[in-house]
């Protein structure tokens, strides 16, 4: 594997391909952040599927496998799908999710119809069109990478120029509108930028999985950072690393299509982040459990103290059963007691009975200054 990697990086063709994968990653990481922050992750999914008929139609009309017409065809049909979704949702009771589902499946269906039609054409190179479904990075040549680079630079430039406007659009579009920015034009611009990212991912990742290349890096990055700038940069980094790794894996093993390989890499990073980041699933679970444990401990401590106050003897011992009486089902009093014992706040007084230690009494008085009484 290592040998292979060395070989890969020293080879000119391989370098071209990896450069393409890295630029694609940077662009989709940056652009995808906007899709995610605008809660439009699935729109990316629809757009990438919807690009298929445009690709095939461009091929049928031009008759050759020219890159530029195919890119333009893909972009146009993706934008048409978004336009139709807006048309349908703003003029009928159909909700956005249904409109998206319809647009995705109809455009993709049409794409497959056209694909089967194109494959019957005399000099149709079947493999050529097929690679747009699941991506095939090995087919990238210098010219493709150049187009990827130029389109990507355009997208990054737009994001850089309209940084603060895009931020307004994502965070508070109504407020942005009152300050004289046309949110409609900005919406269009963001869509254009997302479409350009999708288009340049077509050859490497393919239409079926391109949406994940937009969403997953942004989701992963969001888990680790609280700033928009840092999120965008981190997303770009994650996507670039996954892109390069995925392409290398796909080239290193036989019969592994590039798109799925890249998506597996980026998804693994995303899942890891969602689970283990400071705001992640497990971390939150852990924090929750800890605070619940603390509250329970305090509760038991206070219950002991209250009972003791009734007897005018802070060190008065009580049975475990009496303590459990007033508490919710599933509240394991014994567990809390043994935790308190480990902290030195309570001690056993006989088989079933417990009492506060002097440090436990100090602790409870510190805990609740209001409860302090004579």
């Amino acid at each position, binding site marked *: 594997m290592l040998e292979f990697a060395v070989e890969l990086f020293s080879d000119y063709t391989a370098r071209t391909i990896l450069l393409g994968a890295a630029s694609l990653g940077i662009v989709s990481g940056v652009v995808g952040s906007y899709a995610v*922050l605008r809660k439009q992750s699935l729109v990316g999914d629809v757009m990438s599927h919807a690009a298929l008929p445009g690709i095939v139609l461009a091929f049928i009309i031009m008759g050759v496998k020219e890159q530029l017409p195919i890119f333009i065809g893909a972009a146009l049909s993706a934008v048409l799908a978004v336009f139709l979704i807006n048309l349908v949702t703003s003029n009928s009771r159909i909700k956005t999710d249904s409109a998206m589902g319809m647009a995705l499946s109809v455009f993709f269906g049409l794409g497959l119809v056209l694909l089967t039609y194109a494959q019957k054409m005399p000099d149709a190179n079947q493999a050529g069109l097929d690679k747009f479904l699941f991506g095939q990075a090995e087919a990238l040549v210098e010219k493709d990478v150049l187009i990827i680079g130029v389109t990507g630079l355009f997208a990054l430039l737009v994001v850089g120029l309209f940084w*603060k406007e895009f*931020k307004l659009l994502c965070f508070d579009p109504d*407020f942005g*509108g*009152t*300050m*004289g*920015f046309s949110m409609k034009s900005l919406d269009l611009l963001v869509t254009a930028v997302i479409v350009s990212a999708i288009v340049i991912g077509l050859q490497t990742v393919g239409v079926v999985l391109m949406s994940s290349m937009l969403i997953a890096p942004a989701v992963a990055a969001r888990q680790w950072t609280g700033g928009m700038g840092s999120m965008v940069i981190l997303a770009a980094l994650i996507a670039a690393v996954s892109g390069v790794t995925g392409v290398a894996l796909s080239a290193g093993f036989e019969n592994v299509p590039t798109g799925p390989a890249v998506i597996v890499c980026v998804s693994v990073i995303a899942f890891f982040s969602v689970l283990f980041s400071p705001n992640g699933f497990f971390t939150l679970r852990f924090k929750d459990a800890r605070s619940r444990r603390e509250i329970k401990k305090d509760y038991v401590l206070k219950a002991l103290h209250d009972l003791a106050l009734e007897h005018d003897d802070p060190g008065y011992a009580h049975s475990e059963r009496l303590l459990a009486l007033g508490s919710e089902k599933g509240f394991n009093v014994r567990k809390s007691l043994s935790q308190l014992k480990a902290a030195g706040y309570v001690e056993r007084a006989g088989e079933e009975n417990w009492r506060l230690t002097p440090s436990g009494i100090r602790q409870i008085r510190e805990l609740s200054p209001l409860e302090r009484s004579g």
Partner: protein
Amino acid sequence: MSSGEQSPAVRVTDLTVAYGDKTVLWDIDLEIPIGSMVAVVGPNGAGKTTLIKSIQGLVPRVAGVVSIHGKPYEKQRKEVSYVPQRGSVDWDFPTSVVDTVKMGSYGDLGWIRRPGKKEHEKALSALEKVDMLEFAQRQISQLSGGQQQRVFLARALVQSASVYLLDEPFQGVDATTEKAIVRILKELTDGGKTVLAVHHDLNTVSEYYEQIAILNVGLVASGRVDEVFNSENLMKAYGGKTSFFPERKSSRRAV
């Protein structure tokens, strides 16, 4: 409107707004004098938020004209600053308090230009006014409801406008924040600014505001609180649906 006499801060004429086949605002005429602090009250669905939004052209008007200091809103956009409802945005958005406040300067900057040191200073001084300076670098997701509202107010202060439109600024905020917001709004009106706020709590109207507009699709009444904020007008707006009837000269104070 000759330039000799002073135009009102906000003048709304014949304002009518409809969503689909539902009329939300019907033929509203409203004049808000400069330097006043006005409560917009009315039952749910009376069109209070719609009034605030349609003044700024955020919802399309079927008919009507809005002028700010005698000129159409479209030419006076910079004179108006807007504090939307807190719930209208996603507070998990990745940004810090000072960054959010800085957004208030975006309008003056115009397209493409970035905020710089000057805007940063402005944002900090606005944060100081709302007592939030120590939270400047904090994530907005870590704020309480009252703190979120202060951030929104600070963002509006940065705009250095002369008319402030607030949508339920006291919704779900703590007592300290409520007092602080009232203090800041009073300072604004004392300084000749105009404040128009959608208000829910009828108990505090007389305490906080001098002027009131009572709304229920149409304008039920508008004017000085001690003149129009009476049970007759409230009955008209709320029907029997409110138990609050202010008595003349009563000085009910809510805590």
